[in-house]
């Protein structure tokens, strides 16, 4: 009897919580706390990862630092820059619980996600592909029926495959490294993620030549930085930082640093992508 009483009390407590809305604007929050927190990846080279020197670096992190400079300029006060790990499964809760102010990693801008968060300009374009062992019979999305495909919990690839190719056998991991290790051990026939991340993974692997990235883009993945909804002042700061970087060439320098021919994951910027990026910059 006592136990069922306990249970009822707990259930009542939880279900009686009313709904609420309205939040503190991000710029005010940053001004108040003096900290700008960015959620990024730790296992997604070259956007956000731990390098051989055990430093936390990446293309998205560098771009977020440009945003940080713009925030300091806008607020007129020094602001601390902090990084927090975020994964596909955790990034929206991290934002909505105010644990981070900006997600700068590998988050795809989608219409569904725009119901929960706002996105900055697109800062990178790619599409979902597959990573397989060299010589694997899987060459594209049509070959995955009945095969064991690894994905990350909460990613757009997982969702796309679940909706469009339910006959594929999905194994869902919590993070990219676990999935990749499973792939190397033959527990998966293929691992799916956005093409550029697969390239990054390939080049970071001990034997890059053992792995291939195959398949046409079966999804279109424009990466954007995510922030809380209805916060246009903050969004303006983020977008202006990105636009200034593209206009002033800072962006392309960073692109070259991380994706250029001398980098660890060469991924040439296609002319269409370059035009797209430059056209995102609206006049002053």
């Amino acid at each position, binding site marked *: 009897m006592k136990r069922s009483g306990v249970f009822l009390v707990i259930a009542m407590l939880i279900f009686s919580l009313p709904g609420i809305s309205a939040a503190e604007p991000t710029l005010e929050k940053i001004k108040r706390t003096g900290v700008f927190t960015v959620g990024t990846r730790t296992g997604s080279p070259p956007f956000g990862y731990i390098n051989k020197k055990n430093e936390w670096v990446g293309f998205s992190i560098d771009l977020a630092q440009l945003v940080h400079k713009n925030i300091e300029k806008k607020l007129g006060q020094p602001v601390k820059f902090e990084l927090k790990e975020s994964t596909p499964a955790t990034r929206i809760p991290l934002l909505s619980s105010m644990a981070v102010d900006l997600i700068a990693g590998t988050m795809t801008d989608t219409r569904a996600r725009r119901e929960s968060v706002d996105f900055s300009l697109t800062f990178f374009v790619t599409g979902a592909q597959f990573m397989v062992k060299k010589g694997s019979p899987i060459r594209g999305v049509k070959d995955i029926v009945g095969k064991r495909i690894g994905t990350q919990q*909460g990613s757009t690839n997982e969702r796309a495959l679940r909706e469009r190719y339910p006959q594929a056998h999905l*194994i869902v991991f919590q993070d990219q490294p676990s999935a990749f290790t499973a792939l190397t051990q*033959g527990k998966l026939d293929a691992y799916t993620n956005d093409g550029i991340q697969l390239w990054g993974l390939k080049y970071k692997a001990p034997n890059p030549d053992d792995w291939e990235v195959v398949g046409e883009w079966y999804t279109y993945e424009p990466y954007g930085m995510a922030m809380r909804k209805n916060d246009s002042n903050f969004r303006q700061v983020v977008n202006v930082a990105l636009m200034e970087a593209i206009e002033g060439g800072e962006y392309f320098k960073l692109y070259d640093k991380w994706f250029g021919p001398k980098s660890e994951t060469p991924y040439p910027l296609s002319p269409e992508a370059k035009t797209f990026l430059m056209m995102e910059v609206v006049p002053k």
Partner: protein
Amino acid sequence: MLLFGFLSIPYEFQWSVLWQAPYDTWLMDGLLMTLKISALSWVFAILLGILFGALRTVPFRPLRALAAAYVEFFRNVPLLVWLFFWYFGAPEVLPEPIRQWLIHHGMEFWSGVAGISVYHGARMSEVIRAGIQSIPKTQLEAGLSSGLSVSQTYRLIIIPIALRLILPPVTNESLNLLKNSSLAMTIGVAELTFATRQIETYTAKAFEAFTAGTLIYLTLCLSIAYVMNRVERKFAIPGLIARAERAEH
């Protein structure tokens, strides 16, 4: 309850996601998977526990040492580390045909079962050992001197007492096993905690999703505890106060 009212958190509650398709099936599937992996691991853990718990009490030194080694080896390392080991480490030393068979028959599930049963088997064996050892020797002597044979004494006196003694701590350990099954999500097993996170990533309604998971776990644990409590009381032998209360880790 009114606490959240003036905290102005940017969140809109939407409890209906919990019974919309496909989220409700995910919850059910997750629950079934939790039950499956827990039940199977429980069977193995009990068997291992009885085996090694008994071995620790036999009057033969090498066997006792072997059992002690098993227990100390497995229970001192966190279960999470064991799960990673059983999924990423151990299968690599298996012969190739077995490995391939496992891969195609749900290696994630079996690695989870292996990790959970071996770890909890070690914990069970400690609980069972303590129970067996807390039965006063006098019971055995009394039985023998009343004219019962050794096996009769065990069957009619020792084992019934032992079962009643170990029931509470074994129930406790079994509930721990059920709760620890949630760790299997890290190696790809789609159990209940995994399902709540899955719902959360698709709908961004973390509060509702986590609440669903929490309530289901609570219901499971509290009802099992309640049922076992009734069972214990029904079968309790009045006067047998000495209980194996050693806290085990």
